[in-house]
């Protein structure tokens, strides 16, 4: 059974409220990656409360999920979070580069994050001689983009084992363009490749903590369920980009959150 996490359940409810208030947000995609983001934010992106500038949310449409976890961990205040996607807000439907809100790259158009983090990791390892690790969260269908495979070639060639690539494998558009056995396809690019249940935070943490002994990026294919936690959102794809319209719909959908 899934690792039960009351915090995350509350955070999902908060996402629904914020989405209702802002009339914006990709709820289903955010729920898909919430456990992954929870593990990353709690363990790898901050040191003594200071952001390490080592993360790119390449599937930018999950911004609401990222900011929700930052709010849950008290890096972003309620006041700021509840302003999500409002006219003067720094937090938008897709992230905009701003280190003050822990956003290293502007994303939203898919396939931009990996080339950028490849450049960052290259500079860090080869030029700055730093041992810092970099993390990127991508969508599975983002792998349709050619820049992903271009960047993987570079990661291999320059032995960038200081990058951890997490792929949110929620099979959301598998029927339209199949990625097939994604792990097998990626094996050419990494000897340190893993598959994991992307909602099992314990297993995710273990994998992320494991030292990468190869000369390639660590790749984690995290099998997830889009909309995870609410059967209604899981089963109805209209929730890909939809917000609870009124108080009634908001209350109703909050009731469906199970974990």
């Amino acid at each position, binding site marked *: 059974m899934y690792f039960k996490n009351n915090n995350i359940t509350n955070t999902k409810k908060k996402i629904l409220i914020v989405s209702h208030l802002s009339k914006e947000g990709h709820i289903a995609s955010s729920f898909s990656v919430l456990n992954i983001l929870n593990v990353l934010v709690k363990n790898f992106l901050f040191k003594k409360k200071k952001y390490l500038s080592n993360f790119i949310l390449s599937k930018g449409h999950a911004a609401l999920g990222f900011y929700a976890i930052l709010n849950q961990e008290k890096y972003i205040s309620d006041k700021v979070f509840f302003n999500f996607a409002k006219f003067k807000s720094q937090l938008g439907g897709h992230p905009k580069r701003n280190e003050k809100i822990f956003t290293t*790259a*502007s994303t939203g158009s898919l396939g931009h994050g990996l080339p950028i983090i490849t450049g960052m990791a290259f500079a860090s390892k080869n030029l700055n001689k730093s041992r810092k690790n970099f993390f990127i969260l991508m969508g599975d269908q983002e792998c349709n983009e050619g820049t992903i495979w*271009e960047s993987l070639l570079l990661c291999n060639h320059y032995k960038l084992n200081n990058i951890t690539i997490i792929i949110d494998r929620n099979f959301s558009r598998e029927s339209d363009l199949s990625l097939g056995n994604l792990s097998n396809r990626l094996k050419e690019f990494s000897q340190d490749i893993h598959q994991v249940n992307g909602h099992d935070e314990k297993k995710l943490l273990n994998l992320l903590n494991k030292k990468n002994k190869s000369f390639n990026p660590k790749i984690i294919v995290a099998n997830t369920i889009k909309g995870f936690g609410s059967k209604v959102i899981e089963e109805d794809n209209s929730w890909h980009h939809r917000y609870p319209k009124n108080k009634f719909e908001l209350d109703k959908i909050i009731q469906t959150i199970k974990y």
Partner: protein
Amino acid sequence: MRETFPKFIEDYLSKDKKIFVLLGDIGVYSFRNIFNNFKKNILNIGILEQTMIGFSAGLAIQGRVPFVHTIAPFIVNRAYEQIKIDLCYQNLNVNLVSVGASLDYAALGSTHHCPEDVAILSKLPNIKIYCPGTKVEFYNLLKQYALGGPKYFRITSSTHNLKFHIKNNAAILKKGKKATIIVIGNALRLLEDYYQELDANIIYLNCVKPINREVLIKNFNENLILIQDFYVGSITSEIISIYKNKKLKIFEIGLPNKFFLNYGTSQQHYTYLQLDKKKIKKQILTKLKN
């Protein structure tokens, strides 16, 4: 002009180790000395232009000052969205140095021509666009490499042969009464033999974004002739916005908006397109008479 770029990099790398050069598998031979002497500061990254731009953004985020170099259409067209988002939206200091401009690679066909670079790049906020007309101008413009934000240097093998003082990317070559003639970068070669004879303000610009508005406003004439070595219409709206409340008659000389389907040399193309000195002089004189 092409050889000026490796020379500049060599001169400046000895003082500034933050410089980092990315070649898109172009110009590798001309950078051979830098590969030997500064191998930590240069990569021939391969033929992956979109990723090359994103990669350069990553270098800039880590405090490096990247120069990205390849043939114009492969950066400007192929990686346009990367330039828009990774460089302009994030406002990162990355220097794009293209070669080929409009028709340098005449014999290679339209895949290698880029007469539209100024038109499409100038619509992106935050970018600066330089069109040097000589090697010396190019070298001097490159000195601005450390300035914040993305920059595009439009490098071409056809240069003009005049020397004059340039201030804030503009020069007033001559004052006159009948018109104001704005000449961009290397297009000055088409006027250099006879511009003294023309009764017009002749303004030279080697930066089209941002344009030196002050010089244009001070040298206003309602008859405006715009001479450029890229598609006509590329910067017209910007010029109009500078003279917003004034009546203007604009006449443009430049490349027509079409594919250039012949091969041969760029000179043959310019002759075929009636963009040679004689024909242009005749056109300008006719305009100045009216």
